[in-house]
Structures are given as structure tokens and as C-alpha cells.
């Protein structure tokens, strides 16, 4: 509450105004995901045998890692009013590359995989930022071509990988905490910091919110967009690497298949609107966790595939409905 405003005799606000669609709403909204997660957890604790075991909960966290990592990158893209459908294929490319370079040592292999991710990301970014192609279609093209390229690299075959380093990377744990989970935690923190306090972070949200305005304010729109898609590519590649490490096999045909949809759902369920201009990192993580819990629940209750899909649909809609933007569709 500024001193000037009070001079204007403005009625003292009950609470400092909060971000869009504020107030009580926002309270519920931001907790919409947590709410859904809570309900689901409660249900499982009550009705799912052997759910409340450390092992099981740990498992859910471990399985969520790939989607969560991809979703982090996706959130950045979505915040710029973009979308990245190519993430699954990027995972495949990274996976396909690892066995090719394993000869030169695991770390180099991983590095090359990540670089590949960056390159594909740069391709997406250039198409969107410099050629003005609409993100969904640009990344769709890369989705098709990317997966196929991965299959060409690997000649369509799954390759088993016996490498101690990757083994620990995928399945090891430090102080009882799975390595992959640690990695996720670190990444999440980095992204949060970037979004909250870095110049790039502030910029990408502004660009998503109103590109024309961002441009007139002298923001490097294109460069920022490029950066964002590269980040998304790298994160997806990392997810592909971890996936491969954990499975002990590089399976470019199937790794990350359709993950883009789960990731986008996680992002949106987490409260980042596809219209851009806003980003919720923690929400995204929670969104991913929700997706994971749904999957776990239907499997552990041995529901038939048909029913599983319908239930998943229901939960997604409800979760998003709770935090829908009253502003406009």
C-alpha cells in the first residue's frame, strides 16, 4: 500500500492484491492440484493394499522423474505462449545416441545426447522465432522426423546397455535418495530461480503475455524464444538419458512415446495457462505427480484399460476445473 495511494484516500486493502484471478479463488486454485493429489492419496491409503509403504511411495516418485523433467521444459515453452510436441522424439534421439558413443565413456555419451537435444531444440526455436512457424506445427514436424531419425540411428533396434556409471545414474541412490530424484530436485530449483529472478525468466513470461508490448519494450524476443526451446530440448534429452540408464536399454522406438501430452497436461493442471504469460514451476511438478498417481492407482486396482482411460479423463477435467481461469476460456 503506497503512501501516495493513501493520499488519494483509497480504502485500505484487506490484503495486498495478488496475481491474476486473485483472492480466495487463487487460494483454492493454486491448491487445486494439491487438493486432487491429496484426495487421490487418501483414497489409495484407504483402499489400496500395500500402498502406504516406503517402497511404493518411493516408486511413485522415481517413476514421475522423466515426465517431471520434460514438463519443466514444457512449462517454460508454454509460458511464452508456445508448445513443444517434439519432446518425446528428442528423448528417443538422446536414447539412440548413447550406445553409439558409449565406447568413448558414459559421460561423453551423455554429453553428446544432451547436445543433440540442444540442437533439436535450436531447430524448433529457429522455426518458431525466426521463420515465424506456429510452435505446434513446427514441433509436430520435428516430432515425426525426430523419432524416425532416432530409429535410423539405432536401426530400429533396442540396445541393451551394461554400464556401471549409467547403472548408478538410473538406479543408484545417495543417502537413500534415488539419484534421478536428486537430479530432478536440482533442476526444479534451477528453473524456479531462473523464472523468479533471472532476466530471461522475467522476459519469457512477458513475451508470452504480450509479444507486441515485449518487443516495443526492447526485449530480445527471438533470442529469448530460441533459448526457451533449447532448454526444453536439453531437458527432454536428459529425461531420455535417465530413462535409458534406468531401463538398462536404449529403446528409441518407444522411449517417451506420447510423453508430450502427459507433460502438457502436467503443466496445465499445474496452473500454467496455455495462453502463456504465466508460469507455475512447483505446480507443474505437482501436476506431473498427479498424472503419476492416477496411473499408479488404476494399475494397482487392476482396472481394465478402457475404464482406466475414462477415469483419467475425469480426474484431469475436475483438477483443471477447480483452477480454471474465470477470465476467459
Amino acid at each position, binding site marked *: *500500500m*503506497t503512501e*501516495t495511494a493513501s493520499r488519494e484516500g483509497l480504502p485500505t486493502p484487506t490484503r495486498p492484491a495478488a496475481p491474476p484471478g486473485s483472492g480466495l479463488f487463487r487460494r483454492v486454485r493454486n491448491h487445486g492440484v494439491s487438493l486432487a493429489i491429496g484426495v487421490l492419496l487418501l483414497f489409495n491409503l484407504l483402499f489400496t493394499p500395500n500402498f502406504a509403504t516406503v517402497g511404493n511411495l518411493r516408486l511413485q516418485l522415481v517413476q514421475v522423474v522423466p515426465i517431471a523433467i520434460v514438463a519443466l521444459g514444457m512449462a517454460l515453452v508454454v509460458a511464452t505462449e508456445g508448445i513443444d510436441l517434439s519432446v518425446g522424439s528428442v528423448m528417443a534421439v538422446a536414447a539412440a545416441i548413447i550406445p553409439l558413443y558409449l565406447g568413448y565413456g558414459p559421460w561423453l555419451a551423455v554429453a553428446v545426447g544432451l547436445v543433440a537435444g540442444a540442437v533439436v531444440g535450436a531447430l524448433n526455436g529457429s522455426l518458431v522465432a525466426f521463420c515465424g512457424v506456429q510452435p505446434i506445427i513446427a514441433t509436430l514436424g520435428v516430432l515425426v522426423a525426430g523419432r524416425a531419425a532416432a530409429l535410423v540411428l539405432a536401426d530400429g533396434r533396442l540396445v541393451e546397455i551394461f554400464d556401471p556409471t549409467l547403472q548408478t545414474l538410473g538406479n543408484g541412490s545417495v543417502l537413500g535418495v534415488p539419484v534421478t530424484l536428486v537430479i530432478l530436485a536440482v533442476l526444479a530449483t534451477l528453473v524456479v530461480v531462473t523464472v523468479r529472478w*533471472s532476466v530471461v525468466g522475467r522476459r519469457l*513470461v512477458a513475451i508470452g503475455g504480450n509479444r507486441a*508490448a515485449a518487443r*516495443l519494450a526492447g526485449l530480445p524476443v527471438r533470442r529469448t524464444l530460441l533459448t526457451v526451446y533449447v532448454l526444453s530440448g536439453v531437458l527432454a534429452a536428459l529425461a531420455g538419458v535417465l530413462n535409458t540408464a534406468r531401463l538398462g536399454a536404449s529403446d528409441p522406438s518407444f522411449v517417451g512415446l506420447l510423453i508430450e501430452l502427459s507433460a502438457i497436461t502436467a503443466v496445465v493442471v499445474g496452473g500454467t495457462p496455455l495462453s502463456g504469460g504465466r508460469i507455475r514451476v512447483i505446480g507443474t511438478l505437482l501436476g506431473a505427480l498427479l498424472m503419476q498417481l492416477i496411473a499408479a492407482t488404476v494399475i494397482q486396482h487392476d482396472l481394465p484399460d478402457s475404464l482406466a482411460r475414462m477415469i483419467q479423463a475425469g480426474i484431469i477435467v475436475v483438477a483443471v476445473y477447480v483452477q480454471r481461469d474465470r477470465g476467459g476460456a
Partner: protein
Amino acid sequence: MTLHVEAVSKQFLGVLALDRVDLVLRPGRVHALVGENGAGKSTLIKVMTGVHRPDRGRITYRGEVVGFGAPRDAQAVGISTIYQELNLVAAMSVARNLFLGREPLNRLRLIDFAAMHREAQAVLSRYGVAVDVRRPLGEFSTGVQQMVAIARAVSTRARVVIMDEPTSSLEPREVDRLAQVIDLLRADEVAVLFVTHKLDEVFRLGQDVTVLRDGRRVFSGEVADTDRLRLVATMLGRPVDDVSAHGLTSFGDGGGAGPGDDGVAVLRADDLSRRGALSHVSVDVRPGEVVGLAGLLGSGRSETVRALFGAEPVDSGTILVGGEPTGRRWSPARAIAGGVGLVSEDRKVEGIVGDLSVRDNLVLAALPRLARGGFVSRRRCDALVDTFVRRLRIKMTGPDQPVRELSGGNQQKVLLARMLCLNPKVLLLDEPTRGIDVGAKAEIQALIDELAGAGLGVVLISSELEELVEGATRVFVLRDGAVVGSLGGDAISEHRIMTTIAAAAREEAASD
């Protein structure tokens, strides 16, 4: 008594936007609604027309209590509204915008575009807007868009016409046209509500006037029984004798310190041309100078400043900043880096980032300066924001409030602050005081003066001629994208400007 608002209240989070407001609209009378930015004028209108629902109070329309669920309902019963943030579809043609929802149909119940375009052309030419109605509305300047909005609102046979700051970017000429339109409406016994910050319009057009302050009605009565000074006083809530009676605007005479002796222009353009928009425009600003651009709707003033700022390409011509020619790849980013700032006339589309907080919007352009190693220093950021919120008296619940929740005028102030906080060498201001209340306008004018005094070069576009007359050291007069004359010193007067434009018009007529 057509429309009667009784003790209506509206509470937004943290703000009581309307507090037991009464308002009466009578057939055949024009009711002027005035008040500072953020007083609650637009909110009142939105509540009256079903955009917002009132928390308390009731609205009676032609004798019966009404509760509109959506603007649609209000329009259905003959209440037609022009909202402050123009409600048109930029991507669609002018004609479609005019007729959306009530397009002329042929026997097959299909839209008869020929008829639609004919009528559209006819309607607009009545408002003196000579545009190709098949073109997307977005191609045209805000002025045109505002006229289209007016035409749309009036051409529906409405019993009540509500206009939220319809003249904010209209030229005197267009204002005259609007005046005629309003007279016709009155003749048809239509009730008109009219929001403006240009007080002379209140006295010229209105019969009744209501003053809002901080969401409360502080005065309501016949225009005849009040005067400008009293009105200002009630708006600001200060005793009359406080409100000094100096000039219409608060520019010091001559405006600015006058041209610096070194004489080298901080910004100069030679022969800027772009097909269909600009032809051989040459302008220059020296340090400490306020250079005005005058002209009618679509004369190319915005075009000019946007070209100077690198926001629009040019086919030919050169732009020099501080004597240095700018490269081919002149862009807003480079312009800002080079000390040039622009405040666009279109605050909604090119100005605010609605979802972002006031803070983020204000510092948007200054981020690199506030950052250390890529990360923004919160402390410096807040300091900066605080200074400008004070300086421009931006009214908000706090720097975290989303800027779209601010009133129109306050959004404008945020945009000014965004550029001012860069302390640039040259400021290009396209309708900077558009939609800003008398109090704040005075401050901004004083600010421009002060900045100029401190050696800043200013290019000022204003639809209010007296602002140019009192504020500018030199005025370039534009018409159809070309400079048709420039005035300096005492030669600057509303009369001279208008005659220059008229003369150019006559030459043109003569030439072809």
C-alpha cells in the same frame, strides 16, 4: 427517466471501486461523467451494462428493475455502449466490425456483403472516415478505430448510448463530428452517458454532470450550475482556491529549455518513406526540445515515431541518433539501447502485459540495468518502482497488482514510467496523456517540461492541440504521411496549425 442507478456498489479484491453510487439518465439529455483515473467511471459503466454484476444497489431501466447477465442482454433492450478499451476485432474488416451480429441478410438468410460494404462506407463517410471498409480494422490507427466503435454503437437503434472516453484519441475535427452525432441522438430522445477527461467537452456537450471520486459520487447536477474550476476542485477533492487557475495545461511557456546551443540533434530523420504510409518525412529533435507532431486522423504521426523507433520498417531514408547514423537493422531493442524511448498510443495491444504485476510491467525495459549477472536485484527494482509510483501518483493496491486491474489512466502512467525509468536521451510520446485525468495530466506535462529542461529531447504527439501549442518549441504538421509545414516559437497556435493543414488540403485538391 430512462436509466436509473441507485446506491450501486462494486467491490474488487482490495478496492471498493463503487460505493453507493446513484446516477440518472434522461431521454434527450447528455450526462457527462467525470473523475480522476481510477475513480470508478468505467466500472460504473460495466456494472450498468452487465459486464460486472453490482454487489449492492439496483438499476431500473424504463421503469422496471433490471439485472443484466451479459452485455448482450443490455444491448438487446437498447443500451448501446462504447467501452474504454475499444471492443473491436482487429483481424476482421472494418465493415464486419461495424455490422457484427446484425449483418444484412439476403433472401437465403445469407450475408449480403455487397449491401454491407455499401452501408459501411456510407456510415463511416458520415463520420468523415475515408477508409477501405474491406481492410482489416487493425491496419488503421486508433483514431479510426475509435470512430468505427462510435459508428457501431450509434447505428444500432438504441434508447441509451454510453461512451467511455470516446474522444481520448480524436482530433478537434472528429470531436466536432461526434458533437453533431450527439445532437442528433438528443433529437431522437436518446439518453447519452459520456465519460471524458477533457473538461471543455463537458461544458460543450453535456447538460447534466456527475463527479466520481474514489468510487463515491461527490457531485451531481446541471452543467449550467457549475464551472470548470469547481469541477476540478470536486474531482481532486481540494478547495477551489487550491486549484491554481494557470493555463489550460501546466507546460511552462515555450516548453523545455529550448534548443541546446550545441544544436546537434539527439535524433533526426531524413526523408523517411514507406509506401502508403510515409513520404519523405524529415524531423529532428535537439536536446532540451519538445517537438510536436500535429495532424488529423491517420496523418502519419504514429507512423513517423514508430519508424524513428525502429518499430516499423522504412523503404528509404536515414535515422541518426546523436549524429550517428543507425544501421539497416534498426529495431526497438537497439533504439532503447541507444537512448530512445517510445510510449505507444495503443496501450492495450502494444503497451501493458495484462497478467504481469505493476512492478514487472514498469521495469520490463529496464531489466538489464537492474540485473547483476543475469539476475534481477529485487532491492533496486523496488526502489525504482517506488520512485515512479510516487512521482506519477499511480493508483493501485500494491506493486503486485496485475496491471490489467488498474484503471485506464493508471495503466497509461505505468507505461510512461516504463520508458522514463530508462532515463533516455529522447522520448517519443504518442498520445502520452491519452485518457489521463486533469490532475495527472498536469503532472505529466510538468514532468515533460522538467525532463526537457534537464536536456532530454521529446517528440510529442497529442490529439489536444493546446497541449502542443503550450508544450512544444517546434511543431511539424503532417498530412497523409508527409510533413506539410513546421511552426516555431510564437508562430505555434491552434489557428496556424489548422490553417496549415487546410492549406495542404487545398493544394492537394488543386493538384489533382
